């Protein structure tokens, strides 16, 4: 009987009910997206930093990681020194340099980002097709791996040859530090922006053309032998090699967290607003629906239906609206997050593997659960008010059909 009455109350004005559900869905979607934004960026950073399992970054003192200008000299000695540490696992050197690609026939030049890496311990890319480069710098032409944007930009395929130079004078059309390379594989770089063309080659090959001289690297990515002693390993590196600074991903995460806290606050406020909107929407609809049925409710009370049952029935209406809205909002929120992620993936300066929005089930259930609770709470006041009206007086004033 009560479900029938609640259902009837909702189906009496189907358009209105659908609009209300849609409204709740929109606010639920916004809420969900805000939660996904708040957690997604942080998780994404953490995952990205730890993807290849190098929790420490060693860079020249006073620079940020990925600052390609600053380099560390005497790299091989330093690498050996760090690798000698009892707490240290693998050490992966990284040298970054802007390169110029010279098209052999037209002599047209375009810039690409070059990485010098040790392929045995690299933590920068994942192979997509072809083969990985090998460690020997002696091969000529040098075997390199590149990403998809580079292939598209230069109109090349795996197997083709590239002519690269460390310096290029556009007036005189002269180059310095020339290097001929064969593309052996296509890879995806984790830390570079998705659209930038990137080439990676054995470290020694790039060091050979680096204007700063040989035996330099931009940074080392360092693994701790024991994952619970990262901080000790970090302190040890800084003590042993005072000219570099070691940053652990935890420290980096703290910095990232601080910067992201603005986003999180924004997401929190907007999320709260959408929750409030959902609440007000359900309250409004339930109030309107109840006011329409004041007479009916008075009749129910007159013939002996308890206040509790009247309230239950009305609250059910609000609950159904908000549950339907929350389900719709889940779908809508995921769809918008996907679109927004795609749009924002072109955000300049961010790694390709970075997500702004990330679906984390627990956060999603918590936020949608909150919305449903708000929807249930929204019905309580109008329901209680209607059920508490004086019966005789209301019957007299509100004749029903």
């Amino acid at each position: 009987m009560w479900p029938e009455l609640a259902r009837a109350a909702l189906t009496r004005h189907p358009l209105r009910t659908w609009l209300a559900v849609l409204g709740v869905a929109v606010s639920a979607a916004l809420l969900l997206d805000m939660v996904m934004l708040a957690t997604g960026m942080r998780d994404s950073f953490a995952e990205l930093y730890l993807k290849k399992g190098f929790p420490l970054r060693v860079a020249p003192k006073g620079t940020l990681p990925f600052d390609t200008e600053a380099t560390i000299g005497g790299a091989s000695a330093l690498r050996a020194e760090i690798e000698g540490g009892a707490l240290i696992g693998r050490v992966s050197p990284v040298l970054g340099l802007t390169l110029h690609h010279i098209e052999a026939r037209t002599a047209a030049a375009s810039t690409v980002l070059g990485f010098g890496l040790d392929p045995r311990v690299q933590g920068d890319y994942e192979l997509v097709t072809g083969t990985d480069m090998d460690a020997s710098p002696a091969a000529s032409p040098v075997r390199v791996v590149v990403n998809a944007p580079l292939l598209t930009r230069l109109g090349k395929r795996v197997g083709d040859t590239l002519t690269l130079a460390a310096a290029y004078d556009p007036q005189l059309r002269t180059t310095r530090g020339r290097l001929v390379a064969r593309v052996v594989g296509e890879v995806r770089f984790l830390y570079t922006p998705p659209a930038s063309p990137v080439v990676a080659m054995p470290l020694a090959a790039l060091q050979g053309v680096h204007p700063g001289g040989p035996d330099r690297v931009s940074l080392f990515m360092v693994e701790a032998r024991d994952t619970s002693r990262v901080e000790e390993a970090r302190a040890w590196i800084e003590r042993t090699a005072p000219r570099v600074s070691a940053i652990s991903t935890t420290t980096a995460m703290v910095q990232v967290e601080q910067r992201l806290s603005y986003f999180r606050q924004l997401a929190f406020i907007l999320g709260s607003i959408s929750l409030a909107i959902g609440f007000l929407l359900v309250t409004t609809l339930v109030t309107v629906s109840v006011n329409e049925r004041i007479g009916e409710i008075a009749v129910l009370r007159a013939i002996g239906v308890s206040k509790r049952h009247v309230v239950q029935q009305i609250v059910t209406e609000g609950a159904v609206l908000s549950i339907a809205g929350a389900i719709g909002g889940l779908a809508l929120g995921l769809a918008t997050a996907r679109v927004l992620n795609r749009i924002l993936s072109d955000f300049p300066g961010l790694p390709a593997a970075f997500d702004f929005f990330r679906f984390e089930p627990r956060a999603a259930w918590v936020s949608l659960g909150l919305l449903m609770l708000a929807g249930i709470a929204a019905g309580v006041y109008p329901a209680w008010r209607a059920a508490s009206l004086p019966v005789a007086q209301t019957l007299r004033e509100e004749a029903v059909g």
Partner: protein
Amino acid sequence: MTAVVLDAEQVERTYAQAERGARGVTAVRGVSLRVHAGEYVALVGPSGCGKSTMLNLLGAIDVPTAGRVLLDGIDVRTLGDREATRLRLERVGFVFQRFYLMPTLTAAENVELPMAEAGVARRERASRARELLGYVGLGDRADHRPAQLSGGEQQRVAIARALANRPALVLADEPTGELDAATGDDIIALFERLNADGTTLVVVTHDERLATAARRVVHMKDGRIVDDRVVRPLLGRTA
């Protein structure tokens, strides 16, 4: 002597005025009325004399500002909302001038409603609803909604609903007020049958024919009872 179902003693009801300072309206002034089981009472009188107010007090949907109403021996004023609601559910059946059926429920569901509230099992209340609809002559309209029924049919559904929980007392306020003469006669006949089958009835009416069908007629004027007489003795006592 049969049991007293209703006992109103020196009942008064004053409505407070909305505007500040204005005097309240006293709709019922010191009315005493005793109704025994099996009686059929018509409450008549000019418009505004307090009949509906009195009926609401007798049915525990309103509380007197002075005096007391005993329903089945229980003083209504001592009850909290929950107990008063339960008392209405189990002991009183209401029939309204404008039927007041739930528009979204079928005839059978409308009759089942008070039984569902009283906790009667689904199967039992469905069969009793059919039985009651049969009793009021609507056995074949059980699945129709109020909008698909005529006024007279709706009022018969409302009467079936009033009888759902086997009340000690049925109260009706102008039950023929919205109906034409012929349809009204059907309802009057139904009330007579109801009373003959043992239901205690108090009916407020302007309808001369309905009033003459009652066994006892109570006249009200200006919130007071001015005449109270048995026009036909109770069936039980004549036979």
